[in-house]
């Protein structure tokens, strides 16, 4: 069995497409998370596959569906951007052989295929549809929503997992070599870290609008504060450390103007959701959270680093597309959970959709006001990647939980949680979802 990437036709990446044809007809009804850890310890029961099986089974249990009634699986096979099995290192055969294997020995360890999942979840006897939404959970969510709306599946698991290995992220593979091929050399020779492009955009943003790095401090502190109220998250589980504004301002630089806390921490983690039709959702255990619309950005910079102008134009377009798909205005949005990993582009997403009327260049001033979960303008109530570690999915879990009113200590209290928006990752390439308490808002 071979699982394909979703065709571009499943993504709504143009303006002018109108209201999503399946508005309110698809719902999230279950959530499951695996345990987190900083790096894999080499054991079978903490491997990428193991924590993903936990997440999937928890989502099924949370929704209260019979596994045999699940007919779809949408996920992402790739599980890292910077942690690669060292060349020449012996494969962990004891772990590989602890599970049902595929043709790829490291499946379930440094990658995760749909085939591996289905071989290791024999209870999914009714599965008839698998597809990849490659990139992150944001991709998988819009693909799953579209698949259910189109009738390709009626009850679908949505999975995203990330692995991390011993050693420093991004510092293995070609980055450790004495010579590299000519095409990647055009970028890599200058040694820019992953956050560099965003740091450049942020620097230009500060120059253009007269802002400064310290103005990010309230956002970072708020994000970690919210994350520490996310019991499924890495920081809450392992290192319950707040980030004060003073901590933030004193942190070491990675690529100035991006410091340590302008970067998220790579972790092992996995999350799964269960989506189904609105009709079926009404009869399940949890309050359904309906998808009003989804939208995708497929912009790209002209050259290496998208300029601030390119970023702002693309984020504004993404905001318009999402609101158009959902058939709402930004005034209808109760809270936003747009992506933050890197936090220095969160304001581009937020300004793009004009959350609370914030215009380009105004977000850092907005951060100096009450952006907490108890105020009228909650910003990133999930805490995002800064709050809970590098997953790119806390924002989605939080949207669902907030609207279900089971976000626990993170529950927003200054607004009625009726409509939430989430998505990312990059300002010039992401996927966005609008969630609702009702199917016909």
């Amino acid at each position: 069995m071979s699982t394909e990437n979703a065709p571009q036709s499943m993504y709504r990446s143009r303006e002018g497409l109108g209201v999503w044809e399946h508005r309110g007809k698809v719902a999230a009804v279950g959530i499951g998370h695996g345990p987190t850890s900083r790096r894999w310890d080499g054991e079978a029961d903490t491997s990428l596959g193991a924590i993903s099986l936990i997440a999937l089974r928890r989502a099924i249990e949370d929704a209260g569906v019979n596994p045999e009634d699940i007919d779809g699986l949408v996920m992402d096979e790739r599980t890292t951007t910077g942690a690669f099995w060292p060349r020449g290192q012996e494969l962990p055969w004891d772990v590989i052989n602890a599970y049902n294997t595929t043709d790829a020995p490291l499946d379930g360890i440094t990658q995760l295929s749909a085939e591996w999942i289905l071989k290791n979840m024999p209870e999914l006897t009714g599965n008839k549809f698998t597809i990849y939404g490659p990139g992150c959970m944001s991709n998988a969510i819009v693909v799953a929503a579209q698949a259910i709306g189109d009738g390709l599946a009626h009850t679908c698991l949505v999975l995203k997992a990330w692995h991390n290995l011993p050693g420093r992220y991004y510092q293995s593979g070609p980055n450790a070599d004495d010579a590299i091929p000519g095409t990647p050399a055009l970028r890599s020779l200058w040694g820019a870290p992953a956050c560099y492009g965003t740091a450049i955009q942020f620097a230009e943003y500060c120059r253009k609008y007269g802002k400064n790095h310290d103005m990010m401090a309230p956002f970072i502190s708020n994000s970690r504060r919210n994350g520490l109220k996310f019991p499924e998250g890495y920081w809450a589980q392992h290192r319950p450390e707040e980030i004060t504004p003073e901590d933030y301002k004193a942190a070491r630089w990675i690529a100035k103007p991006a410091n340590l806390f302008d970067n998220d921490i790579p972790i092992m983690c996995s999350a799964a959701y269960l989506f189904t039709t609105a009709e079926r959702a009404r009869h399940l255990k949890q309050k359904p959270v309906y998808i009003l619309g989804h939208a995708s950005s497929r912009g790209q910079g002209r050259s290496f680093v998208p300029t601030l102008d390119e970023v702002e134009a693309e984020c504004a377009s993404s905001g318009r597309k999402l609101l158009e798909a959902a058939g709402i205005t930004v005034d209808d949005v109760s809270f936003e959970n747009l992506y933050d990993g890197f936090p220095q582009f969160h304001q581009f997403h937020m300004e793009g959709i004009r959350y609370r009327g914030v215009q380009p260049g105004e977000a850092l001033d907005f951060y100096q006001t009450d952006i907490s979960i108890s105020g009228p303008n909650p910003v990133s109530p999930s805490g995002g990647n800064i709050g809970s570690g590098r997953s790119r999915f806390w924002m989605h879990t939080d949207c669902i939980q907030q609207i279900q009113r089971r976000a626990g200590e993170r529950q927003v209290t200054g607004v009625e949680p009726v409509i939430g928006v989430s998505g990312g990752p990059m300002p010039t390439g992401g996927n966005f979802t609008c969630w609702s308490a009702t199917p016909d808002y």
Partner: protein
Amino acid sequence: MKQGVIPDDLTRPFWEAANEERLVIQNCRDCDRLQHPPAPVCGKCGSDAALEWKQMSGRGRIYHYGVVHDCPIRLLQDDQPFNCAVINLDEDPGIQMYSHLPGTPVDEVPVGAAVELVFETAANGQKVPEWRVVGDS
């Protein structure tokens, strides 16, 4: 020290020109449009028929910069912290190149300043385009 470069099919003309201390950028004759990084086809018309390599003047301006303190490239880690700037070419400001701005003190980069092309030698002897500040911002 920059990593060595092993030219591949797509970028061989770029690196060969660099060894002659010339900067060439891929251009689509039909669209009269530069593109960098190079690609198998024109990013605008989708054709490979009119792609060529066009020599640049070697002049540009600094779009912005960062200071790298935690570099993922092993061979550059002894040089930290260092400037890493984005250069816009005079021929087309939409075309960017990276630069360590040799000769410019760390974190004293004049954003918007004029720069001119110079060349450095990478770990395996390959020459690499670099940029030096020649004017005020």
